[in-house]
């Protein structure tokens, strides 16, 4: 039974362009109290009369337009968002209040150092906290998001190896890796080699040992991996790599399972990135802004991006004289507003609070796993960390695949889980509740998933044609991808 949603009037809304009418405007300027200037003269003719097609609407029309569109959306503020590997957790409002503090929100990137000591302290302190959480020695906050962090991390590895005389040729990734890992390796000029998983869903260490040689620059591992399973032999993975002079890179996408429990630096990781917009509760989705800090062991610190924030005689300064640095990877100091939110999150929780959040995230995932285990095929027998992965093996004989179940879940008032990833699981359903959810919401989710499992048996066509209760019925994703219409007006 669908308990979480009911039908509700939703306003139709055209495109803003279609509502435009010449001369309408949403602003009113006071009378000019300074001498008028001819802009064309002042700007040497580099002006234009208007922007073709730019919509002209009143203030209330603009407000209604975007407010109506916002009601079509699903968001973490409306309910659970169990998108695996994305860690869609709630962003506490106190983080927003802190980020809007005048001195932080209005600081100018070109302001003199003396005027922005507080901002530099935010950076310095966040770097230190993240280093402590990860068990690493130095951190850069410049990268704008996870994939950018990966790229920065691998460039740092490349710089270290070049300084030793040989950048080497290839990077190893497990077959369960995030797609960005091999893409990063290729962007940094490396060949990619796949390492198979063993039957426990973990890196096959003997296959790894056979693949590592003097041409191997690094291995990129996500831990816990994309099956939500902790790599029990991660020490051995590190040892095998280090014995051949190769490095261990960790994708920190799943750090929400480790904070306060286990430190990558302690299990042999040389370089890693974090996703502040996942683990450290900063806004996520809609294209950002995110932040993808990179943490390294001391022997890689000289290669981190420039400038570095340093504390000298009680004064924060920007150190630019770093001859071995890979250079700048982002304008100014990265997505500073995100950094402020992450620092607020860490300080509000403190060490014990962060640890508790991790334990709750793991408990929630295992609670779901336990309750759905009779209804969906669990993939790996190894215990789950913060997310659990099922396959659609019990549903596919009825002609229903993971994507169909996900669409039906929308009718029940939930954002879909992650569909068809990781690729090594045939028909994957990847579910990550995070610590955000209480038992009530999780029980609703479990009931929805059980109810759908029953519908698959009773009425597969109902699932095939879902969603039914949404504003827009099932969309044709295949035609949209094959013949995309990318312009408002052809």
């Amino acid at each position, binding site marked *: 039974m669908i308990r979480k949603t009911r039908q509700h009037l939703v306003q139709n809304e055209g495109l803003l362009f279609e509502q435009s009418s010449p001369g309408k405007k949403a602003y009113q300027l006071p009378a000019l109290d300074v001498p008028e200037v001819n802009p064309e003269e002042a700007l040497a003719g580099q002006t234009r009369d208007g922007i073709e097609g730019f919509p002209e609407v009143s203030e209330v029309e603009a407000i209604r337009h975007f407010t109506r569109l916002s009601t079509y959306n699903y968001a973490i503020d409306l309910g659970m968002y169990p998108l695996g590997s994305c860690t869609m957790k709630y962003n506490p409002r106190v983080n927003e209040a802190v980020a809007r503090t005048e001195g932080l929100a209005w600081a100018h990137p070109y302001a003199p150092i003396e005027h922005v000591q507080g901002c530099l302290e935010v950076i310095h302190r966040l770097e230190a906290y993240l280093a402590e959480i990860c068990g690493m020695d130095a951190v850069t906050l410049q990268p704008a998001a996870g994939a950018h962090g990966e790229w920065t991390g691998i460039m740092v590895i490349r710089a270290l190896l070049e300084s030793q005389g040989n950048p080497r040729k290839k990077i190893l990734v497990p077959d369960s890796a995030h*797609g960005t890992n091999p893409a990063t390796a290729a962007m940094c000029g490396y060949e990619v080699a796949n390492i198979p998983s063993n039957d426990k869903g973990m890196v096959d260490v003997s296959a790894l040992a056979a693949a590592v040689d003097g041409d191997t620059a690094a291995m990129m591992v996500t831990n816990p991996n994309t099956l939500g399973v902790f790599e029990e032999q991660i020490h051995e993975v590190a040892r095998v790599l280090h014995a051949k002079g190769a490095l261990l890179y960790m994708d920190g996408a799943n750090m929400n399972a480790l904070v306060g429990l286990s430190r990558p630096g302690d299990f042999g990781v040389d370089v890693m990135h974090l996703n502040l917009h996942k683990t450290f509760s900063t806004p996520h989705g809609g294209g950002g802004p995110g932040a993808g800090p990179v943490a390294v062991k001391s022997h890689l610190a000289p290669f981190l991006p420039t400038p570095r924030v340093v504390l000298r005689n009680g004064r924060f300064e920007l150190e630019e004289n770093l001859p071995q640095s890979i250079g700048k990877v982002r304008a100014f100091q990265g997505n500073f507003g995100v950094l402020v939110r992450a620092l607020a999150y860490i300080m509000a929780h403190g060490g014990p609070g962060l640890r508790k959040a991790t334990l709750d995230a793991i408990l929630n995932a295992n609670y779901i796993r336990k309750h759905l285990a009779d209804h969906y095929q669990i993939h790996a027998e190894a215990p789950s960390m913060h997310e659990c992965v099922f396959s659609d093996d019990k549903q596919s004989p009825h002609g229903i695949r993971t994507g169909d179940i996900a669409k039906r879940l929308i009718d029940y008032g939930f954002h879909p889980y992650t569909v068809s990833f990781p690729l090594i699981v045939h028909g994957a359903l990847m579910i990550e509740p995070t610590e955000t959810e209480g038992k009530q919401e999780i029980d609703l989710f479990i009931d929805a998933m059980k109810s759908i499992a029953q519908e698959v048996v009773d009425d597969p066509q109902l699932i095939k044609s879902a969603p039914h209760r949404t504003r827009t019925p099932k969309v044709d*994703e*295949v035609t949209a*991808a094959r013949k995309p219409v990318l312009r408002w007006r052809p």
Partner: protein
Amino acid sequence: MAYPENFRYTKEHEWVLDEAGTATIGITEHAQSELGDIVYVDLPKVGDKITQGASFGSVESVKAVSDIFAPCTGEVVAINDSLTSAPEKLNQEPHTGGWLVKVKLSAPEEIGKLLTAADYQQYIGA
């Protein structure tokens, strides 16, 4: 669907047909079925060199982007342009109209070492 006896196959689910030193390459029926609806195909250019075992292009489905690995070494002499506007051909006729590229073989002996139709069907459990 039948797997033609005159093709050879790889464990990465490509097929190859050698006709007097020029080989036609495609993906298998099993591959297209696993990928689901294919929406985009990225192919090399005529004149490019491809190397056995290395990626020479990719196919994008609604689920994922997958590399296509060269079953043999040689120089690309033709590509199937029609896939640009009709990638669904890869789903509909993977062994015929959905071919990807034709290659002038530089090591024709590679072909004989690939899987036969029977080996491949056993490999995928068909």
